[in-house]
């Protein structure tokens, strides 16, 4: 078994006090507790502060393009369904540049655990508004303050048919770790939107701001879509945390004959071209 510490690589390039650290620790701990060996895990990410994660955890990593973390994860899942695939990226990456992949990947319901570091800001590019920035937040591009209502990832995921949606806060590490574990074990697409303070650029949604607002609803009926929708609409004075919805559906790969059988990984099954000579018969 790998210990949580052993997943952590050297130094990070994050700022002191950044909410990303707690997420990294939680993922490492979750992997360790679930006994995933590093070589059995693949983490895909885009570009941004959050997206540097594959460099800071010792697992397989595909650190791709800004906004494009999900498509390679789906491709990887198809080519080798024995890997545990995690996608980890920022809010701008996932809901902004990558919005189209977000909505359509969910519809496919692949076995992907998706952890979004939602700091409500573009961190790496130094503080522009992201799709989840709160109205009124001023930046040096949004000089009059953000005027768009924030993108609601959980409600969107529900509408797209997601089977697992959760919200966590990087200030609550234990809850975060436990939720990540459940997402990792969920058969299908699982979204965990993680509220993550960015002390360098988000001066609005600070640790104090979140702390004042986050709460754990007394009980959540995780089979109830309407209830989940109602919870995911709560934002402002009170922000609920927890798994809002958890219902299994057939997963993506179950639909493909070449994958459903769960043989060896599709990508590396042995093969010789001459065995396919019969392909030309239909043209003769």
């Amino acid at each position: 078994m790998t210990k949580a510490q052993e997943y952590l690589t050297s130094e990070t390039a994050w700022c002191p006090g950044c909410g990303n650290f707690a997420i990294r620790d939680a993922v490492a701990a979750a992997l360790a507790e679930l006994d995933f060996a590093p070589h059995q895990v693949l983490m895909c990410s885009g570009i941004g502060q959050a997206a540097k994660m594959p460099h800071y955890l010792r697992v397989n990593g595909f650190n791709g393009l800004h906004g494009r973390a999900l498509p390679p994860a789906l491709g990887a899942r198809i080519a080798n369904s024995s890997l545990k695939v995690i996608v980890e990226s920022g809010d701008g990456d996932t809901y902004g540049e990558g919005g189209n992949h977000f909505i359509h990947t969910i519809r496919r319901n692949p076995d992907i655990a998706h952890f979004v570091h939602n700091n409500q800001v573009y961190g790496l590019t130094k503080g522009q508004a992201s799709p989840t920035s709160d109205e009124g937040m001023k930046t040096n591009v949004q000089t009059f303050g953000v005027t768009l209502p924030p993108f609601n990832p959980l409600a969107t995921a529900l509408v797209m048919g997601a089977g697992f949606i959760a919200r966590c806060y990087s200030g609550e590490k234990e809850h975060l770790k436990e939720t990540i574990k459940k997402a990792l074990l969920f058969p299908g697409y699982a979204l965990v939107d993680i509220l993550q303070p960015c002390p360098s650029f988000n001066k609005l949604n600070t640790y104090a701001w979140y702390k004042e607002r986050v709460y754990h609803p007394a009980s959540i009926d995780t089979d109830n879509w309407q209830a989940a929708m109602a919870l995911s609409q709560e934002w402002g004075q009170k922000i609920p945390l927890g798994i809002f919805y958890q219902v299994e559906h057939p997963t993506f790969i179950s639909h493909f004959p070449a994958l459903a059988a769960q043989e060896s990984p599709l990508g590396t099954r042995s093969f010789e071209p001459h065995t396919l000579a019969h392909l030309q018969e239909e043209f003769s």
Partner: protein
Amino acid sequence: MNILIGGAAGQGLDTIAHLLGKSLQRFGFGVLTSKDYMSRVRGGHNFSCLRIEQETPWASAQEIQLLIALNEETYSLHKGNLTPQGRIIFDPDHVSLPNEEKRGLPIALRELAKEAGAAIMANSVAVGAALALLGLTTNVTEQLLHEVFAQKIATSNGKALRAGYDEVAKTNHTYFTLPAPMEKKQIFIDGNSLLGMSALASGCRFLSAYPMTPATGIMTYLAAKQENHDVVVEQAEDEIAAINMALGASYTGARAMTCTSGGGFALMTEGLSLAGMTETPLVIVVAMRPGPATGLPTRTGQADLEFVLHAGHGEFPRAVLSATHLEDAFYRINKAFELADKYQIPVIFLSDQDFADTVRTLPPFDFTLLQHNRYLLDDDVLTSPYQRYLFTDDGISPRALPGQFAGEVVLADSDEHDEDGHIIEDAEARARMSEKRQKKLVALAAEMSEPEVDGADEGDLLLIGWGSTYGVIKEATHALRAQGQRVTHVHFADLWPLPTATINKLFSHFPHSVCVEGNATGQFAKLLRRETGHLVDQLILKYDGRPFWANEIVKEVINYD
């Protein structure tokens, strides 16, 4: 012998062309059909050209002997190309020809079809009529009908077929004389199916793509194979997803491909650069159609050469291949997959609408010639910890797959990185990693096939072409030789890194050099000058969305002199 079948979209031209072409193939003739169609589903004017020779023709011909006119527009657009001895099959109840038109052969296509069971089978009547004019029998075609359709439908279509046949046989039997058929067994296949088939036989396990004419046929070919083969086809939400999915699949070990046309490829250029940076093998088929922007979606051209050569930000090695003809393409797509895996680079295969939609009779392929080497790190040579971007003499780092070795992880990175794959910013390390990538070009360049040369090492005229114009330039070459010119035809299939030895040897031995291209700016000629310094004397360019005719090339060469 050349047959043109024309009508509106939705009138079933494809069925006629397919039935006729396939029957002729089975009779042993050499057949080529090409397709000219509009970007609409019903109406408009579409046509197919079906050429028959003893050996498989290299290109369509402009002169028509038999015109099957499903509407009047077909007649008026194509009558000029019909020879004086030509014949026009038409349905006098729906199409009327002018009185002075003596070549018409009225056949009550729909009436006869109705008698055979239903008006919708008029096309079978037309095929029957054509068979009679060609002096053939209906049995081969009837057999075909039974292979394609359910018993009942096949039987009534057979009836319709014979009705058309009999109608003509009464008066015009064997109006046209065909050459003697070939002995050898032939297949009859179109460009897109061929690319799909070769990809599958090259071990391609994953295709992610977004529908786009004229590339969609590759996708539908492979989609149909999912049931019984180790391949997955995923329709992506957009082309960006398509290329990034393919990269994810390739990184984890699947030979992966995507296919699109210029506009979709434009959306893939960032992903192309990612393939270059992460050193992830990938094959991209770009089926060209005329641009810019949406342009002419169902037409052909060769105007995306410069774009694919330079697409993607930053510098990274890539290979760009095309094919001289269908048979060549079968083996060259295999080469594309091999190069991608061996050099861990993106390989672009340039097709075009004319190539994609052309159907030809060909000798069966030799599948034993296809290669399937994965160029992966062997277990016994692994040194731990594994480094994805290990520096080596040839720039190629041993490739391992995620999960391949217990305890080892594989890190692919879009940022500049060290040998482990971790982000770096250091100047020296960056320069070295950039050089490592560029180094791969040395060995890669040596893998490029020199262009095919048809003709002597010196002469009057050097005709240069690339890609799918091979057949038509070949015909032009023969025509020019017939006029006494000493012509050499040089044709490039592998385009980048550009193989230059042959052209360097030949170029100065011809007083006149001509580059023939399906674009408006002479893109290949510019590449040639950039890479070799040779400046061709003449450009023969076509950019109206149609393939060249051999006689256009002949005329332009001559007019220039």
